[in-house]
């Protein structure tokens, strides 16, 4: 057997081992229900409940921002983000939060916003609007 074949087998073996271990880093996007049941750290895709209150009071704690969000099944939960309030969250289409359920609220320390592009809304701005502002 040639060395190159040995190396090949070796590389394939490592590749399989690594790919198997990657599966440990992978998860499906969870819903709030699943987050409650598993109690694990998960990613949840949700939408901001724009009618509910968002609280960010940095004088008290600059690392705490709370809001309400609905997951894809329509279940609404309070989310406590242990960070400062992300910019433009009001404009987000969907939100991906990473964290886990703690009692009644979802405590997240990572957030990704999906915002509609500024250029997608094809509203024509008129010159006089500019004057008014």
């Amino acid at each position, binding site marked *: 057997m040639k060395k190159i074949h040995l190396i090949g087998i070796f*590389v394939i073996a490592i590749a399989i081992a690594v790919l198997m271990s*990657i599966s440990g880093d*992978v998860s499906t996007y969870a819903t709030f229900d699943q987050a409650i049941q598993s109690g694990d*750290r998960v990613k949840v*895709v949700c939408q901001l409940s724009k009618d509910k209150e968002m609280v960010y009071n940095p004088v008290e704690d600059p690392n*705490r921002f709370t809001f309400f969000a609905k997951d894809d099944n329509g279940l609404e939960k309070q989310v406590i983000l242990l*960070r400062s309030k992300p910019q433009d969250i009001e404009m987000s289409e969907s939100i991906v939060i990473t964290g886990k359920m703690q009692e009644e609220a979802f405590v997240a320390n990572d957030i990704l916003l999906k915002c509609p592009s500024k250029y997608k809304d094809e509203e024509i701005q*008129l010159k006089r609007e500019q004057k008014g502002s």
Partner: protein
Amino acid sequence: MEYIGEHLLPGQIGHFFLLLSFVASLLAAIAYFFATQRRNTPEEGSWKKIGRASFTIHGLGVFIVVGTIFYIMVNQYFEYHYVWEHVSEDLPMKYILSAFWEGQQGSLLLWMFWHVVLGFVLMFTAKSWESPVLSTLALVQLIITSMILGVYVGFGAEELKIGSNPFVLLRNEVQAPIFASGDYLRQIKGNGLNPLLQNYWNTIHPPTLFLGFASTIVPYCFAVAGLWTGRHKEWLKPVMPWASFSAAILGVGILMGSAWAYEALSFGGYWAWDPVENTSLVPWLILIAGIHTNLIAKNTGYSIKSTYIFYLLSFVMVVYSTLLTRSGILGDTSVHAFTEMGLENQLVLFILVFTFIAAFLYLKNRKDIPAPQKEEASSSKEFWMFIGALVLTFSAILITVSTSLPVYNKIAELFNPAHEAITIKDQEPHHNKYQLWIAVLISLLSGFAQFLRFKEFNWKKHISKFSKHAAISILIAGGLTFLTTLWIKVIAWQYLLLLFAGIFTVVANTDYIFTFLKGNLKMASSAFGHIGFGLMVVGIIASGLNKKHISTNPFAQRGLLSQDMLNTNVLLLKGVPMFMSGYHVTYVSDTLEGNLRKFKVNFKKEDNGETFDVYPSATYDNQVTKVAAYNPSTKRYLDKDIFTLFILPRTEADIQEKRNYEDTLSYELYQAYENDTIFTKNHYAIIHGINFKPTHEDYKKEDGDIALGVKMSIHKIDADTSWQVEPVTVVRKNLLINYPAIVPELSMRIKIPELIFDRFFGQPSLDYSDFVLKDGEHFSYNGMKISFNGFNTNPSHPAYTPEEGDIAVSAILKVTSPGKDKSFEAEPIYLIRKSQPFNMKDQIGELGLHFRFTEIDPANKTVKIGVATADQQESKIPVEIAENALRSDYIVLEAIVFPGINFFWLGTILMMVAFFLSMWNRRKGFKNG
């Protein structure tokens, strides 16, 4: 419908040249194809001529299209959709380049532009390779041009739109009632460039990165040419400088992206394993693997097959990266925002075509590719370099697999609609975990392999030299690693190993330069590159592993936080020092220039009193109503960076929020005479008087303003503390603008109500009695004696600011009152400004008297003076005070220390320099073809 003021000609010219360059690229591909097929026949020359001519036409066409777009952008022809989308009237010219490639069409054109430039260079330098290389390049151009063609094929409902033309008109793209009006152009304004991208990095990063992407086509074309013409050995030499060039430029492009992210964006780091970063890194890794096997192949004849595969794959991965980043498929996993343009199908076709060409040619010719019979010896340089290339490939595969999960989800959904999308939970640790081992292997290999020789040359004699140098390097690296651990903390043995490996390759390659190359720096490009890699590894461990948030104040932490949760921000009140991690930090001041609000934050080190300032800033949108982006600021030391970023309170970041908030405050009205005291709910205030030349930090004086401020001091009841404040109100044209005074410590906001202007204007309730009198005469009014003591032709009056052309005069009035032992003076003004008569009244607060000077009769030398008595109430100064105001004079600061980050920059720059050096050294291959 007639539209007024449209400039349709440039669009027609542009689109014509777009179509022309599309057709010309097709012709060039075909002509060069036949020039290759009929090589060494008499026909070759004429095909080549056609090929050259059509590629030249294609290239000029692309240049004209690019030029035309710039023309319509510079002239702000908003009738074009692309111009309207990316340009606005207030966009500074220096950002016109950024605006050009902000959109998909512009960036595709940028890509094509570089292809054309490279194509022209190849036309003159590639010699015998010209035809096959340019045939492939022209085919690439054909496909990219089709993406911006904007041509409809087929009819009716089946109509298929191919590409989107950058010259489409706004009124054809967007439905809006405004287009019912023929002169709509006079009414619309451009959308403008996203403020986040109004940054010099966005001027230099995209063209560099795109030149990097574009240049990967050259090794691909040479590989195709080699397979196509069967000259499997000959192409290895001319491709080399091109591959080095590509590695250098693509590398610089990626680095600029990470420098931009670190320096100007709020990402807080230089690399985050974001999918967009990953997909640009993968082609680069494969290219580097290719360069290594290319070297092997050129020197020993081994690894020609793998060189083919790597160079072919590198460009295919560039197209794959384009697909991922432009199709919107990464939306859920990347922080970069991308819009869809309906290009998915064309991009998939793009990949398929070029994968097919590569696979077909490779499989067809595989058997003919020469390889030495004997396999590589395990003590030869080529063997270990090949292993290194494999490790790089492995790294590229791992990154690609993880980054492609969204693609997997999309495909799985096609077969199984119930498929649950999967994703990597935490991107950064995931990638770091695997790439750590890649970096260890690469570092060790690039150290040891330097001491080996190609073809195991004279191994028996060489082995002792090899062992000696390897051993010395290990020892020195071990010692240096130990010293490094005294400086930075290395928490796990894996990292310690990596640190050692990184230092080892630096030491080994330095040794190599001195002992093997005898200091011949011309030959040292590979050693420099590997030293750079080693330094980069050290930099990553130091800055990535030891990066530390210093913006924490443990006393302020809540019990709620669990360990894995971050506590990264502190709140800084303006002017109040805050202690955090060994520093006293103070938010000193802020200034607004244009739409940039710059903050000054002072750091004072507790132990040695060293002090420095950082200047993070907030960029507002073009109307200065809302913060569009926060820009970090970094204090650089040789051995570390202190990186700072902040956010503003809601009410400061958004004018609308500020207004809403103002509305929720409950103001109480207080009125008092000059020097009187008023008692508010919790405190008391002394009103010192009205100031007609007021100053306020937010107030910028404009011509025609009528401004006044109330000077007052606020006092705490139970303490000796007081604050001097001055709320200001301004009448500008017909608007009343309030600049409240704030005493943050007392949660107090003070503003001046409109009522205050009653003192100067209006006050219809006053009932004036008119008296006509001459100089020196007097009259009685309510028992008081009022005498007219002549004119003052140079009058001064608190509310009067002289303007050119004014005719102003005041009447000097003297009042004596029976009950008072002093006399009073008043000087009402009579003013003619722009042929309009005005009068400005004056008053004597203590007597409650108001005077106005309404007429002059030059013939009789008389004046008419009006006198009125007002309630005492009316000469009181009104102020409104709210005592429930939340503070808004603060910033929320994040500060991170990155130790040793300069090793990262130094190392990466050294690597890039090495690629340029290597390109320069091998330019002979470039010249001789």
